[in-house]
């Protein structure tokens, strides 16, 4: 359960560190430049995530979020700059060994419906991250059970195919899969954008509790500022491939300094004009007398 106003005391040990990273894609253009042209998607990114810290990378479409994510996951060598994950320069490590480091990142992809192989049962999906570990079958089964317990899914789900699951359940499976091998970092790519609001709330609460329980660093990539404020204490705001603002979440929402951050914040604030004030002034769900906990 999310604790209002609390910040996890982050140790100073950085788990992810990006220094002056520029990355992007090569495109062939025109006749004269049959050699390909580099189109940067992110430029000069400096980023640090400390152990146990919760960071949100906030940006709208085209801001370079996905590229940044790929760089961190070891999938896209940057043109320039250092990418340090868990103390290792991952792009100095040969590509075939890189997975030893990057598997310490538990990754939850964007669209649960599209990210799950429809031909694999949940059990197989869950076992994937454990494939290259030297755990015994029994230990593996144990791990999978634990992970399912954390995401509040019943074990019977292991026999299901993704098509038999609802969107919320699929997302839980993906989260369970990301934490099953006990990673140091949890990387979430738009974890709630494909979900309905009521499910979104469940997942947000779940992620908060996971962070608390497993004490790992949690990086959330999202375009949704209100969601981000639940999932992160620190935030960076990406705009057209550069970081335009970074700092504590609350600070950014209260006093956005850059033009873009201000636009972002006001577009959410003004969008809720009536409702927000209602909530603050009259308390949550005034129409219902009894407060209940689940």
């Amino acid at each position: 359960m999310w604790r209002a106003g609390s910040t996890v005391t982050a140790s100073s040990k950085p788990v992810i560190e990006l220094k002056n990273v520029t990355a992007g894609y090569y495109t062939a253009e025109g006749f004269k430049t049959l050699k390909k042209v580099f189109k940067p998607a992110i430029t000069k990114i400096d980023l640090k995530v400390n152990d146990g810290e919760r960071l949100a990378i906030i940006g709208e479409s085209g801001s370079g979020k996905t590229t940044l994510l790929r760089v961190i996951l070891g999938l896209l060598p940057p043109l320039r700059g250092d990418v340090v994950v868990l103390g290792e320069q991952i792009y100095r490590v040969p590509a075939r060994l890189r997975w030893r480091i990057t598997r310490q990142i538990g990754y939850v992809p964007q669209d649960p419906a599209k990210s799950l192989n429809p031909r694999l049962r949940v059990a197989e999906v869950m076992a994937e991250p454990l494939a290259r570990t030297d755990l015994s079958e029994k230990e593996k089964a144990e791990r999978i059970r634990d992970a399912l317990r954390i995401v509040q899914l019943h074990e019977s789900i292991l026999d299901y195919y993704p098509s038999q699951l609802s969107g919320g359940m699929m997302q839980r499976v993906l989260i369970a899969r990301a934490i099953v091998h006990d990673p140091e970092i949890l990387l979430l790519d738009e974890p709630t954008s494909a979900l309905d609001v009521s499910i979104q709330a469940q997942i947000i609460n779940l992620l908060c509790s996971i962070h608390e329980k497993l004490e790992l660093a949690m990086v959330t990539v999202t375009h949704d500022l209100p969601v981000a404020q639940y999932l992160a204490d620190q935030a960076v705001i990406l705009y057209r491939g550069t970081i335009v603002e970074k700092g504590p979440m609350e600070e950014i929402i209260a006093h956005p300094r850059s033009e873009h951050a201000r636009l972002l914040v006001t577009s959410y604030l003004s969008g809720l004009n009536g409702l927000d004030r209602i909530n603050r002034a009259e308390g949550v769900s005034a129409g219902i007398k009894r407060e209940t906990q689940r």
Partner: protein
Amino acid sequence: MPVSLNYLVRRVGWSIATIAGVVILSYLVLVLSPGDPAVKWAGNPRGPGAAKAIENARKELGLDQPLYLQVLNFLRMAFTGDLGISIAYKKPVSEILWRGLAATLELLALAYAIAIPLGAFIGVMASLRRGTWLDGFIQSASLVLANTPTFWLGIAIFMVLSTSGVTAYGRVDTRLALATGFRSITGLYLLDALVQLNFPVFLDVLARTFPPALAVAAYPVGVCARVTRALMADALLEGFVQSAVAWGVSRRAVVWRYAFRATLAGLVQVSGLAFAYSLVDAMVVEYVFGRDGLGRFLFDSVNTSDFRLATGLIIVVALFYVLANTLADIVQALVDPRVKL
């Protein structure tokens, strides 16, 4: 123009590589297969000097050189457009190929001029009447059409026509052509007749090309109808089609300007593939209808150890595939403004 130079360069490079591969492979297969081209080149000599003549011929054809040199030499020839002199006909291979290609192309072009609009039309009709008897009929009819062996169909059409006293043999009525002074300029008789304003020959050529074209068209009609129906079924549910309906756009415009337009890219792609496939069909059918096209030459050239002609033919077929592919790409880019090559 939606085609970039970059695409062109890549495409040409890719084509050259493909054709070079085809040349090398076909040369090796043909030269190493039984039958001595030198004998044919020397004219099947039978006198006392036969061995000498064949030896000379072997030298002339370069068959006495090491294989890799032969291949290199042939590659050089192929890419300078000089495919040499046909061994069986003692005539430049390129000339023979062009005549054959023209005949086959004419047949294919007519077949596709019939097949694509017809197939697309009935496919659209079926999609608009989904679940009705018409849909079922079109569906099964197109399945049958797409799977009828073209060779069989060609023979059937020929037999029916000849027993009913109508002829569809050859490319043009010889006597008519002579009487009206028809001359072949490009080898595409329809075009030639038009250029010469020779309408009797034009109609005659058309009439003779029509029955074999029908046989060749069967497969693409079936394929196009099925593909169009499937694509249309999806297209009709597309957001922009739905919006157009909601905005009150007329049914005809919705069907043709909106939904059908969306199926065109897929249709072109499938037709492109089918076109290449139909080349083989056309080769078979023209044999039945007494038309001198690529099909007959391929058969004859293998029979007469004419490796030069056979290789030339294979290059033409490869080129044909490459072109059909490129054309499909380009048409796709023309049809869909989002596609840039």
